[in-house]
């Protein structure tokens, strides 16, 4: 690299990359104001949930499987003790756990069981059952890419709805609740 004249264009690269990032962020923020784009089509919607077999948090030698849950709709909520957004979501889950009318399963994602237990002890446990996926292997089948995420699975074991990010009372009222009620209708007819 001895005394080589660098092309002037390359010196603009950092500026262009930075400008692109800023533009991306600003457009995102503005877009966000005017559009409700919270609909992320997941390839798994209306497909059977993956067959999982995961240890229960309170009794690590016992497993909960997909087969155990067949016959009634339920919610799976992905959380972890290290997840900050889960802390924000937590009060909502505490308030709604009994209003959902269907079981709420906690899915402890890539987390040490003792940390998860301590976290639930400290903040309160909104779940009817907690399963642990320490290695994250099953999470690949579900297509989980972070926490929190929430899945609605029907009585036949089919994923009917997925929400990425914390559940809020608005999201529950607008999206989740109607879906759950619709499932109950299906079940009763």
């Amino acid at each position, binding site marked *: 690299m001895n005394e080589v004249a660098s092309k*002037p264009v390359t*010196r603009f690269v950092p500026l262009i990359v930075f400008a692109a990032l800023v533009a991306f962020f600003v457009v995102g923020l503005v877009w966000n104001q005017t559009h409700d784009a919270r609909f992320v089509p997941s390839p798994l919607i209306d497909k059977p949930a993956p067959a999982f077999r995961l240890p229960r948090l309170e009794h690590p030698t016992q497993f909960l499987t997909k087969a155990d849950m067949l016959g009634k709709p339920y919610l799976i909520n992905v959380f972890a003790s290290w997840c900050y*957004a889960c802390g924000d979501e937590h009060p909502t889950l505490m308030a709604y756990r009994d209003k959902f009318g269907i079981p709420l399963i906690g899915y402890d994602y890539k987390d040490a069981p003792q940390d998860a237990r301590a976290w639930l002890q400290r903040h309160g446990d909104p779940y009817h059952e907690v399963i642990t996926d320490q290695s994250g292997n099953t999470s690949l089948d579900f297509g989980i890419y972070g926490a929190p995420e929430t899945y609605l699975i029907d009585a036949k074991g089919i994923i009917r709805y997925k929400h990425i990010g914390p559940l809020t009372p608005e999201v529950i009222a607008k999206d989740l609740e109607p879906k759950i009620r619709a499932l109950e209708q299906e079940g009763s007819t």
Partner: protein
Amino acid sequence: MNPELGQLALILALLLAALQCALPIIGAWRGSKPLMATAPTLAIGQLVFIALAYGILTWAFWTNDFSVAYVAQNSNLSLPWFYKLSAVWGAHEGSLLLWMLILNVWSVAIVVFGGKLPEAFFSRVIGVLGFVSFGFLLYMITTSNPFLRLMPAPPNGADLNPVLQDPGLVFHPPLLYMGYVGFSVAFAFAIASLLGGELKSTWVRWSRPWTNAAWAFLTVGIVAGSAWAYYELGWGGWWFWDPVENASFMPWLIGAALIHAQAITDKRDGLRAWTLLLSIFAFAFSLLGTFLVRSGLLTSVHAFAFAPARGVFILVYLAVVVGGSLLLYALRAPKVTGGKSFALASRETMMLVGNLMLTVACAMVMLGTLYPLVGEALNIGRISVGPPYFGPLFLILMTPLVLALPFGPLSHWGKADLKVWRNALIRIVALAVAAGIAGFIVGARTWYELLGVAAATWVIAGVALFAIKRWREAPRGKRYPFEMLGMMLAHFGVGVFIAGAILTRSMSVEQDVSMKPGASVHVGAYDFRFNGVAETPGPNYTAQQGTVVITRNGKPVVTLHPQKRTYVGGQVQTEAAIQAGVFRDLYVSLGDPIGPSTGSGQDVGAWSLRVYDKPFVRWIWGGGVCMMLGGFVVILDKRFRLKRAVEPETVRPTPEPEAPRKLAEGEA
């Protein structure tokens, strides 16, 4: 004193900052000596007003003036006096004021110690710092004024966040800020060199001591934060990859890269453009850290909704500072890439490997940290990625760095001496393997432990071999100049840190137990007996204090008193009790009461406890302290003492007859 005076002082400081930005830079541009001569006065004047504002806010805390909203939110009549002083930087507004105070102290330090810099360059540096200061003051005055009044004044304040009522957190923010702000000096030097169109890279040598000081402060700031988390959070962890920690870790990584890039530019004249870019980004990440952490934007863009002015200002300011710098870089960066060429197995290559890994690691941390924020901004859901993402990736990225680390100092600048390499490699591998075997004999059993011992030995053996090499080859008295000594100390610190981080992780024994008074639990080689919990009053809290007697083979070791404090504001805070030692910590923290505190029944007085045996945990911070010392020792090197610049350093033929300024004492 009157808080409105503080407000006035801030406004006057803002005006001075505007002048400090404009006059010296115009002076340097036009070659006008009178304009350039305003730089020291303006910098000192601004410091006076900022110090006045800071003093007034401190006074408001000291005298419990709850008519100041910020004081009412962050103090309380029963808050101990030292926390009243540190509560000044307990929240967003005050911590910005502290930032400003430190920035102005650094600016005046340049006025004092930089007196022998070429005058035009000096003026530009002070001008750039004035610009930074102007932005911050504008932000404070328009969106985050610490002097806002609260009418009517409440009789008592809400109290300082109990999380912050800890000696560790008293010193943590000022140290971090010393680091963040310190990078503004390297930034100002880089921008000044771009503005002046410096052809030579002498400016890099001038900025090196400042960069090292900034990085060393940042290091000890992070160490203090980590130690605090260990004591106070009650989890026994020392690093959580949480957004706030990451915000300070990113400038640290870039700063470490910058220190090495500057060394290459200084000694070999290479990597000039890269050093410029790193100088810009080290400061950009410092800004990001300062703004996002305390304004709450880092964890959620909801904070934008609460305070849209703040969010927009921050984005615009960051865009102007970073975008403007990069534009300047694009227009004015050295048109000719210089530097001496180097062979593959040379010191430059090793340092480049380190640089590459550090910057990529920073990008990785940034991606993970901002992921929830970006996800939320784009409305695709705010999700955290957390330690499962950061931990493995960081380990992977640091492996090449650790492997290359011993060979940087051992190989030569420019040329590859394969004989040196072969000898060093054989010895280092032999020592690392021997250490691994020794570890196995002592009792290390997992791969993780053995690799940890070997990796730490790898690094430390490299430092030792280098020390021996210098002893043999260099003449007496010139064996270990301070620059080299600092490097060795910092690299040794890396080795110690590796040992601590890896061994703690794999050798710790952790148990969560629920215990009745009188019950015992066996953890590691120790027995922990729980003697119940009693209530103890504190100045602004009441504590449930447990008593745990630790014995080893029946012989008493220590009695620990973990606490669970309930502060006047109602917040509950865990206070772990720790028996600290060089080779292991015994750690007890109180969980929650299980049974009733009085009465009869089998659960009476039972509590859940966390009981840890954590070997080598102190080495993590010991390593950090060595790195910090290394950074400071480098500054002492003769190399960095300013000689009077005789030749004009700029392309523009600005007349620069050097009248030495009077303020140059302390130049020893």
